[in-house]
């Protein structure tokens, strides 16, 4: 199983990413994807994503290994954008390929929950002149606990 992990400023092309995943193996019947989008509510004007280079790839890599041990997966692509993003911009892609949809859906949710609570990213919100660091959501910690 091939895992693609990328941390980048640029946007991603969903068609290309899904084709890259499904072109690799003939047994793929299901691709579950999650696309995170910068919400434009609460007067947000820009969102800046910072990360810990090295640790990010290591933590995402260990989430991927854990997912592979739990479900019969045929491919994983994780892309997380960094830098300054506008409302409506795509911020993260988690795509999981498998023979059947049950494994693909479960692993995609698992990876998002683990990414949210383990990968060292931090978001700073600009709302006009005000700047604030995003606080973690309790619901994200609860979501990750489901898999323990």
């Amino acid at each position: 199983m091939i895992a693609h992990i990328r941390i980048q400023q640029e946007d991603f092309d969903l068609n290309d990413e899904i084709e890259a995943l499904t072109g690799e193996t003939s047994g793929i019947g299901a691709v579950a994807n999650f696309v995170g989008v910068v919400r434009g509510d609460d007067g947000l004007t820009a969102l800046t994503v910072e990360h810990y280079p090295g640790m990010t790839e290591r933590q995402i890599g260990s989430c991927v290994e854990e997912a592979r041990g739990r479900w019969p997966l045929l491919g994983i692509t994780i892309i997380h954008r960094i830098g300054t993003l506008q409302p409506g911009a795509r911020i993260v892609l988690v795509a999981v390929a498998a023979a059947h949809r049950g494994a693909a859906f479960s692993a995609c949710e698992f990876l998002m929950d683990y990414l949210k609570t383990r990968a060292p990213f931090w978001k700073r919100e600009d709302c006009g002149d005000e700047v604030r660091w995003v606080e973690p959501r309790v619901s994200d910690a609860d979501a990750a606990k489901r898999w323990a």
Partner: protein
Amino acid sequence: MTLVYFAWVRQKIGIAQETFPAPPNVKTVQDLIDHLQRRGGGYADVFADPARLRAAVNQEHAPFDTALSPDDEVAFFPPVTGG
């Protein structure tokens, strides 16, 4: 020892990274927190309330009782908010 800071921890301390020759009494992450807090200024502010902080040692999440070695890379940051 290398210390690295992220998000508001980095902003309050004013630097992203520093080399730290750890004194012999700094044996754990908690010892390091206590030591840095005594530096005052931005350090005092950041390390006054360790419950708001998380740490990593050599790029793995680390509880505060984790033992430290002279060559470790120790990071301090707020709880992560990616995804």
